[in-house]
Structure formats: structure tokens, C-alpha cells
């Protein structure tokens, strides 16, 4: 009967209860949507930014990251690559040579970062190769082909079929020279990449730069970022085994995680404020309803109800109110988010297209619900109310029949 009584008590003042429920439902719904969207976007952003050219993780020689030198190499990349085939969750593994040289044609000379890539596997790990707009990407049969970023091609004033001379230094410091043929020009939208990167087949790279079969890095990729994160222990073990280091994406691109953190923490501050305001309103509703019934509680105690029992009833009222409010909010929130999960949200304003291209972002963002994201906001709200609900509860526990009946 206490349960039924608790439920009925909530509805004594329907307007007040409805307003409180709407407040809770609205906040819950907002938080479900916003968290799913924000964290879902972060996932998209991370993957987008990483997959252009870095991959989701890399194996590198020790000390290479802080100070990349031609001489720092992974001596037997094929062995490591073979072992990586056995790691669960990876969708792509590819080796790279990173060099630097001066590219020239008749009239122009420009410095460029020269990447030796594996034409078969590179496309499984990064998207840069897929951004070729003129000509084609490197293929397994290519010997002296080169693919340039469009800014670089423009600066060098070369087009498809033109020869390009390359001058760099090999692993032993000697001069590395080569002549290559332009087969493709890519446009990633990232100016730094388009103006500075040239790709040649890794076998050619190894020959020209006297690598003796070695590579500078091995990049890996999974379909979804979490898979690589889960396999980290195995990957680190493999790195140890082969005498190299494994770098997580956070180590490769620390600013990406930092940026997400900064954005997230500022947002959380705002959400927290909202939760606090709503919780305050609800608590006020509960407290007021307890105060209004002081006399009634006094009579109930007089006829034999114990303060603890009244307390339990009040607690139940609080749970009902909160559960219904948050519940409605979660349902609507999931509905709204579910709709956008399919449709996506395109944020289009002036200039956004170029910016997205620069960062490799898609033009549509998709919220992504997880149990955590759906329950975090309403959960925080319910948690705070449950803790602070102690206040009206304590008041009830402290009631004495005579004082209470006096009002």
C-alpha cells in the first residue's frame, strides 16, 4: 500500500509534478543526445584524422619518433609483418620508408617528404592513396613511378608522364639519386600534405636510399579504432620481440587526444551546471511536498506509523518521480539520437567544407549511442537526487507527532 500511496502522493499537485517531470525529461533527453553525438563525433574525428596518413598505430625503431633519421631502421620488417597477421582485429598492415629529398624537373626544384609505400597494403591502412585525382595510384608492378600531392606537382610544374629527379641522402649518408615518372597526382585537402608529399614504391625506395631491405615504420589499422586499442598488449609484446617500439595513436598524434579532452571538459562543465539546476528544482519539489504534509505525517504517526515507514514512502516518491522523469527523457533521447544515427547531422556553414577537408573530416557526423553515453547524463542526475534526497528524508525522520500536528 505504501507503494500505491507513494505513487498517488506524487500526483497531488499535477502541475508541479508535470513541470518537474518535463524538466528532468528534457535534461535527460538532451544529455543522451548530446553525449552520444559529441563522443560519437570524437570517434569519427579520431579515425578520420588518423587514417589519412598515420594509421591507428605504428611500429618504429627506438628513438625514431623524436628524431627521425634515415639510419634508424627496422631491419626485418617482413618478419614483424608476418607476426602481425596473427593479431586479432587488425584490418591492414603496411611498411613505410620515410625519406627526404629535393625533387626537380627542368625548371624547378622543390623539397619534399618522400614516402616509400607498399602499393598493395598501403590502401588498407591509409586513405591518402585513395585521394588521387589525376592519373592513378601506385600499383604492385610499378618500378619507377611517383605520385605527388597536387600542390607539389603545381610547384614543380609537372603533369602525368613527366619525369622527376630526386636527390636525397641514403642511410649511410651518401647521396641517393633517382629519376621517376609521375603516374598520379593526389589532392587530400590538407595543404601540408598536398604540398610536401611524394610517394614511390617501397621497393624502389629501399634501393635508392640503400635501405638493405629495412623500413622506417610499420603502420597498422583496424576497422574501428577500439580494436587496435584492445590489442595493445599483444602489439607491445610483438614490438619487444622484434626490438622496436610500438606507438599508440595518442603517442603519434598527442594533439588529437588533447584537443578532444579540452573540448570535452569544457562541455562537461556546462552539462554539470544543467544537471545541478535540474536536480535543485526536483529536490525543491520533493522538499516542498514533504513540508506541506507535515500535519498529515503527524496524524499518521499518531495512529501508529513509524517515522522510518514515512521516510520509506517519501523515498519511494522520490524514486518514482526521478525514474519516470529520467525514463521519459531516455526514451525520447534514444529515439531522437536513433533517428540521427541513421540520417547523420551535416553542419554546414560558410567555410566548413574546406575546414573539414583540411582535417579529413566527413561532412556528416553520426551520433553513436552506447550504454554508457545513454545512461551517463540521466544517471548523474538520478545519483545526485538520490544523495541529496537525504535532506527531505532526514526531515521526515526527525518528525515528532505533537510538533508535526501543530504544523
Amino acid at each position: 500500500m505504501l507503494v500505491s500511496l507513494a505513487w498517488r502522493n506524487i500526483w497531488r499537485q499535477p502541475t508541479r509534478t508535470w513541470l518537474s517531470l518535463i524538466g528532468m525529461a528534457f535534461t535527460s533527453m538532451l544529455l543522451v543526445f548530446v553525449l552520444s553525438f559529441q563522443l560519437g563525433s570524437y570517434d569519427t574525428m579520431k579515425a578520420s584524422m588518423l587514417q589519412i596518413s598515420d594509421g591507428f598505430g605504428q611500429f618504429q625503431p627506438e628513438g625514431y619518433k623524436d628524431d627521425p633519421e634515415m639510419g634508424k631502421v627496422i631491419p626485418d620488417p617482413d618478419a614483424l609483418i608476418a607476426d602481425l597477421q596473427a593479431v586479432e582485429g587488425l584490418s591492414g598492415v603496411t611498411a613505410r620508408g620515410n625519406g627526404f629529398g629535393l625533387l626537380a624537373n627542368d625548371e624547378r626544384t622543390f623539397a619534399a617528404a618522400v614516402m616509400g609505400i607498399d602499393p598493395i597494403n598501403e590502401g588498407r591502412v591509409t586513405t591518402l592513396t585513395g585521394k588521387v585525382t589525376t592519373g592513378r595510384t601506385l600499383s604492385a608492378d610499378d618500378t619507377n613511378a611517383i605520385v605527388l600531392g597536387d600542390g607539389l606537382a603545381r610547384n614543380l610544374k609537372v603533369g602525368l608522364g613527366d619525369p622527376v629527379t630526386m636527390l636525397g641522402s641514403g642511410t649511410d649518408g651518401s647521396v641517393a639519386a633517382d629519376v621517376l615518372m609521375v603516374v598520379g597526382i593526389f589532392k587530400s585537402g590538407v595543404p601540408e600534405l598536398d604540398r610536401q608529399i611524394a610517394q614511390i614504391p617501397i621497393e624502389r625506395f629501399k634501393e635508392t636510399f640503400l635501405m638493405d631491405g629495412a623500413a622506417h615504420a610499420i603502420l597498422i589499422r583496424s576497422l574501428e579504432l577500439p580494436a587496435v586499442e584492445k590489442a595493445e598488449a599483444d602489439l607491445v609484446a610483438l614490438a619487444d620481440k622484434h626490438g622496436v617500439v610500438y606507438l599508440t595513436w595518442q603517442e603519434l598524434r598527442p594533439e588529437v587526444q588533447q584537443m578532444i579532452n579540452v573540448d570535452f571538459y569544457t562541455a562537461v562543465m556546462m552539462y554539470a551546471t544543467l544537471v545541478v539546476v535540474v536536480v535543485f528544482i526536483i529536490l525543491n519539489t520533493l522538499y516542498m511536498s514533504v513540508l506541506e504534509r507535515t500535519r498529515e505525517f503527524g496524524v499518521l504517526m499518531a495512529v501508529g506509523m513509524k517515522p522510518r515507514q514515512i521516510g520509506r514512502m517519501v523515498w519511494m516518491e522520490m524514486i518514482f518521480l526521478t525514474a519516470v522523469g529520467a525514463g521519459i527523457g531516455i526514451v525520447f533521447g534514444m529515439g531522437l539520437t536513433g533517428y540521427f544515427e541513421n540520417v547523420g547531422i551535416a553542419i554546414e556553414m560558410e567555410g566548413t567544407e574546406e575546414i573539414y577537408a583540411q582535417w579529413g573530416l566527413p561532412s556528416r557526423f553520426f551520433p553513436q549511442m552506447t550504454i554508457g553515453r545513454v545512461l551517463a547524463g540521466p544517471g548523474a542526475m538520478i545519483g545526485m537526487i538520490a544523495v541529496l534526497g537525504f535532506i527531505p528524508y532526514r526531515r521526515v525522520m526527525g518528525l515528532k507527532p505533537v510538533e508535526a500536528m501543530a504544523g
Partner: protein
Amino acid sequence: MMSAFGTLAPLSWRNVWRNPRRTVITLIVVSVGLWSVLFFNALLIGWVQSSKDAALKLLTQDGQIHAVGYMDDPSVETFMKPPSGALLEALNDGVIEDWSMRVSAPGVVQSEYKTLPITFMGVDPEAESRISTIPGDMEQGRYLQSVEDDGIILGKHLVERLKTDLGRRVIVMSQSVDGTLSEWSYDVVGIYDSDQGIEDFYIFTGLKTSQEFLGLEDEIAQVVVTLPDEADLVSSIQTLKDAAPELDVRSWKELNLFLAMTDDFMGVYIFVWLGIVFSMMAIGIVNTQLMAVFERTQEFGLLRALGMKPGRVLLMVSIESALLIGVGVLLGIVLAIFSIWSLQGGIDLTAYARAMEMVQAGSIIYVDYHPDGIVRYSFIIWILGILVALWPARRASKCSPQEAMRRDT
């Protein structure tokens, strides 16, 4: 009407404080809500401002002038002549605060250990010191002294990667205007400490030195301008465009779309937040005020029985709400001022330096009071609050004289 206010106001004020607990609750809801709007507004503005300062004051400044075609193909072949005629007049006549000429070309720097790609810049040190932050960020050695200075300034991180040092020599290579590769050695006379992204790529020498190096006469790559703080960006840039229609004149907003978007977006963001926060506040206000009216039905009925018209009752209760919310608004302003004051030293985000560089924000965010924002949002919330409180006020005015006679059992 005014006399009505006169008699009702003191009564309303006293009524506000009759039930301290309920009044305090409403005050807290209103003040916390308003505080959040004012504080986050200051925070976001501070963020955008620090971004602008950080990003723009390095090398972008407020606007840039290039020859047409340079932006697509930044090399010696697309340089421009120094400003003259109408453009020179426009630059000197007061619309612009300051301006400087630069040579900028892609090239390579080589130490004993390494060769790295860089952007080679020739600058006018005197003008640069006025418009860019880099001259003030010297960590070792000195900045350039004149346009003929033939020393070179490198970024700290570049120096580390090249394994070179102050007083040593480096070789710079770049394509000169006749198509050949120009190769000179320079003494490292200064090392600057700035954003890593800048340090890794930009090296500086005197303007004339760079022109000789590249085989130029007096051609330059760009003119950069700064505007006075209150200047209107669009019209100032338009003045320059009009003065030099054959050149490519762009404001920072055209050069840095990301920053431009952040700047524009901020205003929208705050209004959305205000809407959300106010919805919650409205619920709080209506809830407490409805309860107040409910408790006082007898009293209102009595007033009606004594001859007070419903309109007057509505006015009286509305004045109560206006006063109550007004006090809440004042409290919110005080809270906001206090929290902004306590952050006067700036919010230190240097731990996130790399990320801040990436989103082009400064590492230290300074928050300011923005009195116009304070007034605007406080007023909006106050008015909206009074409007929302009309609902309970209307309920009050509907209490009939019979209520006065009835007693709750």
C-alpha cells in the same frame, strides 16, 4: 498606473520575503542559471580572443596582400612589387594601424646532420617587432637588426632537430627567380621560442638579404597589415582592395577559415545555451510561484473581496516576481563578476599546448568582464522570467472572494 506601482511595490517587496525558504530556492535557481550564462560567455569570448591573438599575431596579422596567383602557387615566380601609388597611400593614411613587407619562399635548411624543409622568410625587423609576437619570443641570441641583416633566426625545435646551435652555420637552399637553385650559408644569430608548428618551419633573415639570395630586385611575397582594435575588418580591407584592384587582398577571416568560423559560431552557441538554461529556470520559477499562489488563495480572495480588481492582483503578483527574479539576477551578476575576477590571471592550459596550437587557441585564456554581455543577458533573463511568471500571476488574479471564506480541511 504609477501610483499603483507606488502602493504595490513596497507591499510586493515584503511579500517576496514572507517565505524565505521558497524565495531562496528561486534566487538560487535564477542566480546559478544566469551565472552560467555570463561565465561561459566570458569564457568563450576569452577563448576566441586568445585564439585570435595567438594565431593571428604570429604571422597572419589582420590582413595580407599578395600578387594574384601567389596563394595557389607560393614561389618566387608569383611575387609582387612593393606597394606604391594608391596602395601606399591607403597603407599610410590611418585606416591601417601598421604594415610590413615580407619575402617568403619554400626551401631547405641543412646542418651538418640533417636537411629539413622550411619556409624561408625575409622581413623588416623594425616593422615585424611592431606587428608580430615572434621578435619578442627570442630565447637565445638576438633578433634581426635591419633589412640587411644576413644572420638567420631559427625556431627552437628546428634547432634541436638540426642538432645545430647559436653561432653555428646552416645552409639554406631555395629556388631563385632565374630557376637555378640558390645555396647560401648563414650564421645562426638567434633562436625563437613559439608554437612548435611555427618553429619547425619558419626561418627569418633580413628582407634585403633574402631578396639578394633569391635573385630579386625589390619584389616581395606579401604585405601584411594590422588594424586598430575597434576597426571594422570588412570595410578596412575593402579600402585596401579598392586601392589595389590588381592585387589579391584578403582579411584574416578569408585566410583562416577555422578561426573565422569559431568567431562567428560563438554567438550562436551562447544563445543556445541561454535557451536551455532558461527553460530550466522557467520551470523552477513557475513551480515555486505557483505554490506561493496556491498557499495564498485565501489572501488573494480576501483582497478581491475588499475590492481589488483582478488586474491589480495580477500586477501585484507580477511585481513580486519581477522583484524576486531581479534579486536573483543581481546575485547571478555578482557571482559571475566574482568568478571572472578570480580568473584574472588567466586560465593556464599550457599542459594542452599542442592541442591548443592545433585548434589555434592560445595556451592561456584571459577572461574579461564584457559589461555589454552582462547587461544584455541579465536583462533578457529578467524579462523572460517576468513573462513566465505571468502564468502564476494570472492564477492569483483568478482567486475569487469566496476563497477567502473557504477553509482547507
